[in-house]
């Protein structure tokens, strides 16, 4: 067998292997092997060495830029503060009322309570820019596959794979079928659905599985419904920008503009439910 034939054979064998690997390895498998964990942790350490000083300098520079607009911003914040005081008072009253009613009903579920764990983004690759973020927190911090990840604006993804010191976040636009998120609108008459696709050209999430007669209006806010099991309800996702009938003509699809497109993220929060539910037995 000559040189060219051997190369061609190896190339074809490689192609077969790669296709088999893509088809057989489950996407979002949740666990990592020991060599993968070692490589990821080592890379995570090196990435932190670069990203930490960069973010320190960037934040310092951002602070300087912000200083120029301080007076104008202060005026706006003062006005916003008056509104916030009123909203906070209303919120406290409603929370008290909620607690009382829950007590009366002997209602035990605390699914809507969650704790936020801050984490820094230490890695991101240009080829998978819209797919993966690497965080500086891992299994040693109690992170597990399937936990929600959000910024101060809203939900951006789900933890996909965890090594000892780092974890990968699968962004909303690239969730596997097993990671589809149950969502609902916040209108008086709620519409329930599932985020099951992504329109990458317009940066919109596709909310499907809504009955055809569902009442959905443009601009409505979409939050997690908590019906998927693992994510707490009420995490903000985005607002509705477009509504169309589904391809099967039996359901409706809504296109959601995410509150945070996660194009430039340096810090995030990992959301853990306070009721201790971890989705044990569920694969992400």
């Amino acid at each position, binding site marked *: 067998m000559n040189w060219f034939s051997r190369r061609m054979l190896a190339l074809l064998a490689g192609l077969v292997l790669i296709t088999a690997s893509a088809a057989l390895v489950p996407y979002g498998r949740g666990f990592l092997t020991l060599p993968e964990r070692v490589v990821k942790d080592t890379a995570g350490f090196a990435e932190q060495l*670069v990203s930490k000083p960069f973010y320190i300098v960037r934040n310092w520079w951002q602070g300087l830029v912000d200083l120029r607009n301080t007076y104008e911003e202060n005026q706006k914040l003062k006005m916003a503060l008056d509104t916030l005081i009123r909203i906070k008072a209303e919120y406290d009253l409603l929370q008290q009322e909620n607690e009382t009613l829950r007590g009366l009903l002997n209602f035990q579920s605390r699914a809507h309570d969650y704790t936020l764990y801050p984490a820094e983004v230490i890695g*991101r690759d*240009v*080829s*998978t820019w819209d797919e993966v973020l690497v965080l500086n927190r891992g299994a040693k911090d109690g992170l597990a596959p399937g936990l929600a990840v959000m910024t101060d604006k809203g939900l951006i993804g789900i933890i996909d794979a965890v090594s000892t010191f780092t974890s990968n976040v699968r962004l909303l636009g690239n969730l596997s079928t097993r990671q589809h998120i149950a969502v609902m609108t916040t209108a008086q008459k709620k519409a329930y659905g599932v985020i099951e696709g992504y329109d990458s050209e317009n940066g919109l999430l596709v909310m499907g599985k809504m009955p055809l007669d569902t009442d959905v209006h443009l601009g409505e806010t979409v939050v997690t419904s908590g019906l998927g099991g693992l994510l707490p309800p009420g995490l903000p996702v985005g607002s509705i920008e477009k509504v169309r009938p589904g391809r099967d003509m039996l359901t409706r699809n809504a296109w959601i503009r995410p509150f945070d497109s996660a194009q430039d993220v340096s810090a995030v929060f990992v959301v853990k439910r306070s009721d201790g539910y971890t989705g044990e037995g569920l694969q992400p």
Partner: protein
Amino acid sequence: MSHNPRLKLTVLFIVLLMVDGTGLVNSSELFHVRLSTLFVVIAALFLRPFPALLLGFGTGLFFDIVFGRFIGLETFFWTFYVSFLSEAARFFYRSVFFIVPLAGLSLALFDLYADGLYRLFRWTDTSYVFFLRHAVLMDAVFGMIAALILYAVMVPALRALMQERDITHEEA
């Protein structure tokens, strides 16, 4: 700066890997290009097939493990592509007019290969026009710009390395 070309190239490669891994250069949204794979392509044109193959394999595996959807997507492409480049480079004069466009085209070729696999498994439904305009074209253009900068840094060191290798070969 060190006069040892091997050390210079190794340090440069590690720095590029770290910069790519953190996504700091690419976070500007103005400049989207992976520098470490450009390094691999340019280095492969001057290296022998086996070291080039190892370099491609290592880089691909690193990106597959840290960021990839599954292991093999990048490992396979860069291993084969880089060893092929290393073989083919003997027949061309390795000037800036050859290296820079080739580096940009290599990134575009990888985009086409990855998109082909994504479409095969229905992981993407992006239109071809959008993909060509926003991924292939951008990578080719930014790849060439970045390759021009890397050329100035890398090629003198690679030529020195080749000379050193040829002298050792003659002495042997």
